[in-house]
C-alpha cells in the first residue's frame, strides 16, 4: 500500500471511529431508563450505537473522503484524461471505495437490522421482566407463593444481579416450603378429621364398629374401626374389629383390594371409552381420566401405555395453556390484523375473512396467539360469523383438500384448573367440529411480519422486506411501500460509491491552500462538516424516495427498478468523469 493508500485508510478509520464514538455517546444520552432495565443498559447503548452508526455512515464516509482529498491526499500534477497515469491514480481509490461499498451493503442489509433487533429485544425483555415482577407480586399477595417463586426466578434469568428480587424469591420459596410442611400432616390425618367429624371420641367409634360387625356389615365396621384407630392408635378392640372386618369381607367374596381393583377397572374402561370417542370434549375428558389414573396407579402398565395416547389426542384437538406460560419469555409481536384469504376484488370471492391477534409469541415450541378475533362476511356486508378467543396456537395440519395447511387452534386446556378455553361466537356459528380452529389461507411461515409495529418498514431487514413483498398482497396489504423501501435499500450502497467519487472530485477542487496543514480548522471542520453534509444527504435520499414512489405507483415495480438503475448509472458515470476531470485539472 502506497502513502496515499495508507493516508486514506487512516483518515477513514479515524472518522469512522469518531462517528461510532459519537453515536455511542448519543445513545448514552438517549438511553430510555424508564423502559429498559439498568442491567441491560450496556447492551442497549452498544447495539443502538451500532444501528445509528450504520445509519449515519454515508455522512461519516463522505466527510472522511472530503477531508482526505482536501487536506491530506493528492494525485500530483500532470495527469491527463487520456493518460494511463489517470487509470493508475484512480485504481487505488476505486478499489478501496468499492470494497467499502460492499461492506456497507452487508452492514445495511444484515448488521443494522440485527443491531436494531437486539436493541429492541432489550426493550421487550425489560417490559416482560417488569410484567413478571408485577405478576409475581400479585401472586405473593394472593398467597400463591409457588407461582410467585416461578415468576421471580424467571425475572432473575433476565436481571440476575437484582438482590432485591432474589430476596423476594427466597422469601416466596420459604413461604411455599412452609406451607407444604403445614399441608403434609393434613394429608396424613384424613382419617383423623373424618373421625372427629363422625364422633367425639374413639369409644363411640369402636361401639359403632362393633355394632356393625354384629350386623355382618363388614365395610361399615372396617370404616369405624379405622377411624377409631386414627383417634387412638392404641385401641386393641378397634384393631381386632378391623381384622375381623377384613376377614369378613374376604369371606363375603370381596376384599377392599378387590373393590379397589374393580374401581380401577371401571375407571380405565371409562377412560378408554372417552378416548375412542374422538370428539374434542371426550378426548379432553379422556386425558384427565388417564392423568388421574396415572397419579393414583403409577405402576399400572395399561395406564402407562394409554396415557401418551391420551396426551397426543388432547394435543390434536387443543393445546395446553401452560405452553403459553412457558413461552412468555420469547419475543412477541403485537397487533396483527390481516385478511385471511383472497379479497372481494377476486371475481369468485364474495366472502371475506379477517383475523386480528393482539399478541403473538414466537416460541421455540410453536407460535402462540393471545387475544384473537375473527370475522367473516359476505358481499352485502352480512356477517357469517364473528368470534373471539383468548388463546390460540398455530399448527400445521392436513387440510380438506389433502394438502397441509396452517390452522389457528383456539381450544386451550388449563391442566391445573381443569378448564377449557374455547372461541366465543358473538354472532353466527360454524360446524361444531371446526368451531375451535381457523384455517390460515395464506402462507404463514412469517406471520409475525404482519405486526403493526413492523409496518414501519425502515427498520426491517432486507430478507424480511423481500418476504413482506411476497406475502403482503396475500394478507391484504399494499405492496408498493415495501417495493419503495427495497429500492431505497439497494440504492444505499450505490449512493455510497457515488458519494465517494463526488467526494474525491470536490475534495480535490476545494483543497486547502494553507502552507502547512490547518489543524484548528481541521478539527472545527470535523465537527461542522458532518452536520451540514447530513442535511444534504437526507435531502438526496428523500429526492430519490419521491422519485421511486412516483415510478413505482405510476410504472410499477419493474419499470421503477429499471429507471432507478439508469439514474444511478448516469450519476455514477458523472461522478467518474468528475473525478477524472478534476485529476487531470490538478
Amino acid at each position, binding site marked *: 500500500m502506497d502513502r496515499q493508500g495508507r493516508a486514506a485508510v487512516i483518515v477513514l478509520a479515524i472518522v469512522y471511529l469518531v462517528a461510532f464514538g459519537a453515536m455511542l455517546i448519543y445513545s448514552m444520552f438517549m438511553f430510555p431508563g424508564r423502559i429498559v432495565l439498568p442491567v441491560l443498559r450496556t447492551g442497549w447503548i452498544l447495539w443502538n450505537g451500532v444501528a445509528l452508526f450504520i445509519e449515519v455512515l454515508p455522512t461519516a464516509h463522505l466527510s472522511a473522503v472530503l477531508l482526505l482529498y482536501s487536506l491530506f491526499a493528492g494525485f500530483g500534477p500532470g495527469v491527463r484524461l487520456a493518460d494511463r497515469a489517470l487509470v493508475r491514480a484512480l485504481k487505488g481509490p476505486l478499489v478501496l471505495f468499492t470494497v467499502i461499498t460492499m461492506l456497507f451493503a452487508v452492514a445495511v442489509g444484515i448488521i443494522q437490522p440485527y443491531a436494531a433487533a437486539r436493541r429492541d429485544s432489550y426493550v421487550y425483555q425489560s417490559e416482560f421482566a417488569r410484567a413478571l415482577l408485577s405478576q409475581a407480586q400479585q401472586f405473593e399477595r394472593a398467597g400463591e407463593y409457588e407461582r410467585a417463586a416461578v415468576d421471580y426466578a424467571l425475572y432473575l434469568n433476565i436481571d440476575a444481579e437484582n438482590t432485591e428480587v432474589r430476596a423476594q424469591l427466597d422469601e416466596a420459596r420459604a413461604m411455599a416450603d412452609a406451607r407444604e410442611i403445614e399441608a403434609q400432616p393434613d394429608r396424613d390425618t384424613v382419617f383423623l378429621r373424618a373421625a372427629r367429624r363422625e364422633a367425639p371420641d374413639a369409644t363411640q367409634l369402636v361401639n359403632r364398629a362393633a355394632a356393625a360387625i354384629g350386623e355382618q356389615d363388614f365395610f361399615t365396621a372396617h370404616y369405624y374401626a379405622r377411624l377409631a384407630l386414627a383417634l387412638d392408635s392404641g385401641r386393641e378392640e378397634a384393631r381386632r374389629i378391623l381384622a375381623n372386618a377384613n376377614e369378613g369381607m374376604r369371606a363375603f367374596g370381596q376384599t377392599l383390594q378387590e373393590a379397589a381393583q374393580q374401581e380401577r377397572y371401571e375407571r380405565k374402561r371409562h377412560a378408554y371409552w372417552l378416548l375412542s370417542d374422538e370428539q374434542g370434549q371426550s378426548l379432553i375428558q379422556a386425558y384427565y381420566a388417564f392423568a388421574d389414573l396415572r397419579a393414583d396407579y403409577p405402576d399400572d402398565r395399561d395406564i402407562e401405555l394409554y396415557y401418551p395416547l391420551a396426551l397426543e389426542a388432547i394435543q390434536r384437538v387443543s393445546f395446553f395453556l401452560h405452553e403459553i406460560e412457558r413461552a412468555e419469555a420469547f419475543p412477541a409481536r403485537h397487533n396483527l390484523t390481516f385478511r385471511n384469504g383472497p379479497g372481494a376484488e377476486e371475481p369468485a370471492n364474495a366472502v371475506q375473512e379477517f383475523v386480528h391477534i393482539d399478541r403473538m409469541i414466537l416460541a421455540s415450541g410453536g407460535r402462540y396467539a393471545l387475544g384473537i378475533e375473527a370475522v367473516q362476511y359476505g358481499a352485502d356486508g352480512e356477517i357469517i360469523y364473528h368470534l373471539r378467543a383468548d388463546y390460540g396456537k398455530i399448527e400445521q395440519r392436513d387440510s380438506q383438500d389433502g394438502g397441509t395447511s396452517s390452522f389457528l387452534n383456539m381450544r386451550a386446556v388449563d391442566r391445573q384448573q381443569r378448564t377449557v378455553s374455547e372461541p366465543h361466537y358473538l354472532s353466527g356459528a360454524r360446524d361444531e367440529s371446526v368451531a375451535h380452529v381457523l384455517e390460515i389461507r395464506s402462507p404463514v411461515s412469517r406471520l409475525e411480519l404482519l405486526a403493526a409495529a413492523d409496518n414501519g418498514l425502515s427498520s426491517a431487514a432486507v430478507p424480511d422486506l423481500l418476504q413482506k413483498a411476497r406475502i403482503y398482497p396475500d*394478507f391484504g396489504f399494499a405492496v408498493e411501500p415495501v417495493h419503495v423501501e427495497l429500492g431505497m435499500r439497494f440504492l444505499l450502497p450505490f449512493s455510497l460509491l457515488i458519494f465517494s467519487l463526488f467526494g474525491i472530485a470536490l475534495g480535490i477542487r476545494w483543497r486547502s*491552500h494553507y502552507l502547512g496543514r*490547518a489543524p484548528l480548522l481541521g478539527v472545527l471542520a470535523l465537527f461542522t462538516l458532518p452536520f451540514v453534509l447530513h442535511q444534504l444527504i*437526507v*435531502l438526496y435520499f*428523500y429526492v430519490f*424516495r419521491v422519485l421511486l414512489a412516483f415510478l413505482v405507483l405510476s410504472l410499477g415495480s419493474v419499470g421503477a427498478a429499471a429507471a432507478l438503475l439508469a439514474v444511478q448509472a448516469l450519476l455514477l458515470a458523472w461522478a467518474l468523469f468528475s473525478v477524472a476531470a478534476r485529476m487531470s485539472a490538478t
Partner: protein
Amino acid sequence: MKTGLAVALYYLGAFLALVLLISGVHGMALWSRFYDQAAAAPPFADLLPLIMRGIRPALVLGAVAAALLSLFRLLRLGGSPPVALSFLWVLLAASLLVAVAAVELPLQGREPAVQPARAPAAGVLLRSPQVALYVGRREGTQLRDVLLWRASAAQAGNRNGAAGFSVHPRASYDPVKEAIQFSTPAETVTLSKLQGGPWNIVEPPPLVSGMLNDVRRTAVPLAGLARADRLAGVFTVAALALIIVMSWVIVRLTRWPLFNAILAIGWLRLLLYLLPLALDQTMLQALGRLLPLADFPLSYLSALLLAAVGLLLLVINVVMPSFSHWKREVNGG
C-alpha cells in the same frame, strides 16, 4: 462587466434548473401522497397542476441555492466581484419578489380538476395501533363492505366506538376532511393517521419538513408584508437578497474552500431558520420597544434589521483582504 454577465447568466440557468428540479420533486411527492387508484382521470392528468403548486416553495429555495452556486462560480472567475455581486443582488431580489408574489398566486385554471386528497384504495388494509380499515369496494365517495377494527379501551385509552371488528355495508369518503365516515354508529376515521397508504411512502423526514416549513414561514409573512405595504415588501426582499449575496464573505473566508463551502451552506440554512423570527410581528414589536425607534413604521423594521446585517457583511467584505489576494493565495500564484 464580463464576469458580471457570466455570473448573471449562470445564476439564471441555475435558478431555472433548480426550480424545475425542486418543483418536479415536490409535484411528484404530492402526486404520490394523493395517489388514488380509483380516480377516473388518467394517472398523470394532475401531475402538471401539482408541479405548478410545487413551484411556490421551489422559487424561494431555487433562488437562494442558485445564488450560493453563483457565488462559488464567481470564485473561479476573474474580473471584478463587486459588479458581479451587484448583478447577482438585483437578479436575486427580482427572483425573490417573483417567489413572494407566487406564494399568493391562485394559479387560476391550473388547479387539478379534483382537489387532491388522501384516498382509500379498495382491497387494501390500512392500519394504526388503534384502528384498522379495509374497504371492500369503492365507487367515488361511496364505500361498500367496509371493515373497521378498533383497539379495546385498555389498548387505546378513552375513545369512541366499539372495540374489535365491525362490518359496515356502507360508508362514505370525505375528500375534504380526508376521512371515512360511518353512520351506524356515527364515527370518523382520519386517513392521515393510518399506515399502509401511498401517503406514508413520501412522508418527508424531519430535516426536510423542517426546511420546507422554514421556507413557508419566511415566504408567507413576506408575501403578507408585500401585500400590505408594497414598498416595505420590496425593501425587505432587497435587504434579504443583500444578506444572501454578502455570503460572499463566508465563501472566501479562509484559504480552505471546502470549509468555506460548508460554512456558507450552514449559514444559509441558519438564515432560513432565523428569517421567520425577523419577520414575526411580535418579535418586531418587542424590538421596536427596545430600540430607540418609536416613530419608525413597523412594516419597515424587518427591512431595517435585515439591511443592518447585510451592511455589516458588506463592511466585513471591504475590510477583508481583497479577492485577488485570496485568489493568489488559494491558487498559489
